[in-house]
């Protein structure tokens, strides 16, 4: 399909000639592009051709509501934990997004007895689910309130990777000290030995 460069906000055509695809939106009966990129026109067998605007050869995968993401904890607070979202599903992101896990979204049961310090620490790798995209200023809101979500990789105070021993504790193999985390019960098919 021929690709021609276009500007964001450019009016492409009317809705009678084509339907809007990704990177476009309809307003007042016309199709406008919402990205600066290459115009792509694809003809569908049933109905009108689909017009879409593509920015890079591969489009950035954005986390949707309900997607399971892999993130790294960067700072904790008594009310929430701030994370960097690294992977959406199994595809790595080119630039990290920022997310927040609130104290009441860490666990499904006994939400008021949760202590953020006993669930996450900075530099833990956490599996979480997106519950809200947030406003313009705020970050993605994430939740770990399921058995399969939570901390997967954590380092102890001695710097060694810890081994999970229960849903709320991990143990360091070198110093044998136990630390509290909200541990994820990872499905066996995802574990690599």
């Amino acid at each position, binding site marked *: 399909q021929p690709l021609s460069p276009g500007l964001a906000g450019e009016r492409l055509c009317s809705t009678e000639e084509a339907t809007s695809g990704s990177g476009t939106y309809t307003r007042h009966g016309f199709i406008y592009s919402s990205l600066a990129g290459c115009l792509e026109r694809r003809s569908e067998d049933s109905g009108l051709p689909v017009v879409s605007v593509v920015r890079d050869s591969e489009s950035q995968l954005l986390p949707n509501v309900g997607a399971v993401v892999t993130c790294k904890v960067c700072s904790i*607070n008594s009310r929430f934990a701030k994370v960097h979202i690294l992977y959406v599903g199994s595809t790595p992101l080119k630039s990290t997004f920022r997310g927040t896990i609130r104290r009441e979204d860490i666990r499904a049961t006994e939400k008021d007895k949760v202590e953020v*310090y006993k669930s996450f620490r900075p530099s833990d790798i956490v599996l979480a689910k997106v519950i809200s995209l947030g406003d313009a200023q705020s970050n993605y809101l994430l939740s770990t309130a399921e058995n399969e979500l939570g901390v997967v990789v954590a380092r102890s105070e001695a710097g060694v990777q810890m081994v999970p021993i229960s849903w709320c504790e991990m143990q360091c193999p070198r110093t044998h000290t136990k630390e509290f985390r909200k541990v994820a019960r990872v499905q066996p098919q995802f574990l690599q030995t």
Partner: protein
Amino acid sequence: AAPAGPLLCGPGLRRSEAGLLVTKCGLLRHRPGGGGAFWVDSQQKRYVPAKGDHVIGIVTAKAGDVFKLDVGGSDAASLSYLAFEGATKRNRPNVQVGDLIYGQLLVANKDMEPEMVCIDSSGKSSGMGIIGPDGFLFKVSLGLIRKLLAPKCEIIQELSQLYPFELVLGMNGRIWVKAKTVQQTLIIVNILEASEYMTAEQRKQAFAKVSG
């Protein structure tokens, strides 16, 4: 006789696969009671916030419902205005920027900012709260504070023979003193600061010179 019970590894020591590693320089001490305990007695002036410590904080800012206090650590500690005895949403404590507060650290670890409270677990203040007007605040090493807080400390007993005074000791190395006159306060401050390096005889000579 073999010790009964687990061996306690105290401050300044860290356990590793090769055995115990020393992480601070100082004197190695041993207590044979129970299973035995080893720790390192070191000189330190910089305070690292630890949970349960009673500290003296200086109010630096008021942010909404929370006061920010300087306790000498890397982060400012936060103190909620409801954490005073008899404080409600209507009845706020009268705390200004620059006031001194004696409180207990509720949360203190290396990943979060420390949190202070001025009530204990039953809701009583038990001596904590805003430290009254006047007086003198100064900083000493942490080892001297631990020595002064030991039961039946000789320095405090000898000082109390001199003049009556009020004393607050914070585990973050801060001491607040108030006596009847400014001159008496300064004498007590100088004796406390110097008692870190004085022997018992030198201290008795200093007391004799002051009271005589």
